[in-house]
């Protein structure tokens, strides 16, 4: 049962995967979001047990390189939101080169060298407390945001990622520095507001919801929207001038034991069927434009305009800032202007 439109020799991969009967994935996406995907994958290809290891992105990295070096059992595929760490592994030669059958449906920036593929399209959003922030005050773009948070009301009540601790936060902020011509203003505004930094999305949103903080910057939109559904205190805006987009990167371990199953999984994730689940059940924003729904790239682009969407490319260039010297310089500058206490 080769899916429609796949080449005929795809059956070989399916047969191989069936024989392997197992697939090990290390992922940084929580299992609640992954569960529907696995269920559907199993429905499509019964007989392949998917062993999904839920950890944080640093753990994915640490565990994988240690295991790879020891030559023991390790993951067949790695799927993580830490684009930089994923690209580092991929460009260090841990990734298998495999041209997905779905590659044509994925934007070019989301595929690198047929090794690493972006799977989601998650915006960096501004999140605010609906009870305590007036609808009129809600900023619609970066300049407004910078202006707003300098008001006394927001002193000590603005939050964002601690970019020294959070990889995602760091990545967004460096992209901001490139995309935003007035980044220095933004940094200064943070300094005026005495921004409170957090190491995870969860703490940020909890504090915004409770009113301890009023507004949060660069919060991962996918999580924020899910939360906003259940929590009427949470409001989410995507900045109209430009919105940064992050994509969860998947690649197959070059030394994978269950390489066929891994290929099958990757193709499935990028397929229309998989992307629909990602969008509608996992709420992680489908990257494929042919998937429709609330949490899809198509919908996002419709809202903000094609030109204002600024995806972080799945490309070793995200590693630019991984060079220790550059990284330290950026952190130092950030701390001196925005993070000063």
């Amino acid at each position, binding site marked *: 049962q080769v899916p429609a439109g796949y080449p005929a020799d795809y059956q070989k991969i399916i047969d191989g995967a069936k024989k392997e009967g197992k697939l090990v994935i290390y992922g940084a996406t*929580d299992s*609640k979001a992954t569960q529907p995907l696995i269920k559907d994958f199993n429905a499509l290809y019964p007989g392949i047990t998917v*062993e*999904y*290891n*839920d*950890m*944080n992105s*640093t*753990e994915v*990295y*640490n*565990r994988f*390189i*240690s295991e790879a*070096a*020891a030559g*023991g*059992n390790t993951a067949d595929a790695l799927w993580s939101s830490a684009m*930089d*760490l994923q690209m*580092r592994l991929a460009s260090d030669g841990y990734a298998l080169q495999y041209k997905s059958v779905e590659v044509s449906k994925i934007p070019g920036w989301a595929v690198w060298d047929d090794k690493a593929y972006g799977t989601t399209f998650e915006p960096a959003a501004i999140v605010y*407390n609906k*009870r*305590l922030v007036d609808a009129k005050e809600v900023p619609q773009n970066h300049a407004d945001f910078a202006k707003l948070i300098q008001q006394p009301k927001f002193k000590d009540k603005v939050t964002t990622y*601690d970019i*020294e*601790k959070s*990889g995602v936060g*760091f990545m967004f902020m460096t992209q901001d520095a490139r995309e935003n011509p007035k980044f220095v203003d933004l940094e200064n505004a943070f300094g005026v507001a005495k921004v*409170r*930094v*957090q*190491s*995870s*999305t*969860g*703490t*940020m*949103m*909890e*504090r915004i*919801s*409770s*009113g*301890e903080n009023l507004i949060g910057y660069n919060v991962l939109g996918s*999580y924020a929207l899910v*939360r906003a559904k*259940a*929590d009427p*205190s949470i409001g989410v805006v995507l900045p109209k001038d430009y919105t940064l987009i992050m994509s969860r990167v998947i690649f197959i371990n070059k030394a994978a034991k269950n390489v066929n199953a891994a290929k099958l999984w990757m193709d499935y994730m990028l397929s229309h069927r998989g992307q629909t689940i990602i969008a509608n059940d996992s709420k992680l924003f489908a990257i494929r434009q042919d998937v429709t729904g609330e949490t899809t790239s198509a919908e996002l682009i419709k809202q903000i305009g094609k030109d204002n969407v600024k995806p972080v490319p799945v490309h070793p260039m995200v*590693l630019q800032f*991984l*060079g*220790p010297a550059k*990284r*330290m310089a950026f*952190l130092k500058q950030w701390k001196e202007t925005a*993070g000063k*206490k």
Partner: protein
Amino acid sequence: MNTLTLPSTGRRGINWPRGVVVALAAIAIFLPLLLIFYQSFLNAPFFMPVKEFGFDAYRFIFDDPDFAVAFKNAFWLAAGLAVIAVPLGGMLAFLMIRTDLPGKGFIAPLLLVPIFVSPMVMGFGYVVSMGPVGFYSLWFKEILGFIPWNIYSFTSIVIIAGLTHVPHVYLYASSALKSLGSDVEEAARVAGASPLQVMFNVSLPMITPALAYAAVLVFFLGFEVFGLVLVLGDPEGHMVLATYLYKLTNKLGTPSYHLMAAVAVCLVMVTMPLVMVQRHLLKSANKFVSIKGKGARSKAMPLGRWKWLAFALIFGWLMFTIIMPMSGIVLRSFVQYWGEGVNLRDVLTLQHFREILEQPALIRGIVNTVLIGVIGGGLAVICYCAIALAMHRKPDFITRFLDYSVLVPRAVPGLLAGLSFLWVFLFVPSWMDGMLKGMDNGVALWLSEHAIPLLRSVRSTIFALWLAYSVVWLAYGMRLISTALLQVGPELEEAARAVGASRGQVTRDVTVPLIKYGLLGAWLMVFLIFEREYSTGVYLLSPGTEVIGAMLVSLWATGSTDLVAALSFINISLVAIGLGVALRFGVKLHN
């Protein structure tokens, strides 16, 4: 009549069981530490083909101003924690064990709460209840017009850490007090000392050894405090060594093991002298503290007019360290959202519990946690018991060596300890494999065919997790058991030897049955600790072996604070029920 002689065994000389126990313990303790030590002198992960030997890592961290800040903070945190927890723990023990304090019955089990609730959850509870918009804070704001505290300040963190570690000290102090004859205290009372004076002039000075041990232990735990600082330290950017390690990962883009290892080595180096100081204290203190006394007889000391003051103080402590944060957690688990301007009655929900029940992984996590606590805890107690017996009444080099060793693993932050255990499970088999490849005798072949795959597969079982937990908490568990062992009169064992029992038989037939209740108590305590532990296990978890501690962290990271609260609530309730049952069936809290 003829003398009945023993069946001759002829075996004499080396004490094999002891040798095996000591060797295994030494391997379990030092193998991971050696890896860390080795790693700290490289400039890349030790398993990478390209690496250089050198002091880069040390140079880097010593140049890094953050390290200095983190180190200073960690030191103050640990010192402050000890300064708060040790006297309070000692006083609490005195009040609980020796006096007619009202409400002892319900205070005793409550005291255990901070031991089994993960500090991260605790911190979160404080945020919900006493944070800037916490409900106690808002309440105070209504009355006073301002909030009289700032839960995020470093001082608050130190105070909270100190107060939540009071029970650890309490455990040691109370078992020391129990084995101390009360006649010395009565002598002081008859001489005219009030209960307060008795406590400060007699009881506490006499249990100095136990307090010194507890002080060193909580100092170690102070260096290791992570969850609390993670939750409460972020908003104002307070950093300690454990969170600095976390930061290091991101600082250079990729995790930098050599830096983490260097930090860990620094920690071990700092704590080593401390262990020595404590050993010295113990030695000189032991000299003149004679724990004898007729024991049994003691009437609770009447506190008189101090009674209600003492009760109020303890109640205040319970309020602050248990009731306030716990009520925060409970509340959070039953509401959709909360905060300034929210009427809690409108947002009550059971949704979070429903969600948890829907997730098989979470349920499995609960089951696993209970299992690792109950079964793993039991096994750990057996191992601790074996080690304690290896040290029992053998004042020789090996005992001293073990005595120093057991504390060392606790000096390494849990996360790194977990990582080094992962390395052990990964690389030891592959090195052995490499070595065996060179030889081709039968034994080597058999080993590489059977033993090595076994070693490899161990890693992904819950055994790996258990081993890591057991080693990290070795000092804690050992002390519980050796206190029990101390109470076994040597002549009971000597009597058995005199009638012809070998060492092994003495241990089996006399020593172990006599510390039965001590072991049960230790089991309970180890259960509680394993229940909350997570950082050590992060790298050793795999699907099917998840535990609540780790799940809480990952839920926290993805923003499901509601689930964190609900899961904690379930976990705390389960443990509380289990505790209740255990206590009902006569397990003593401590010997």
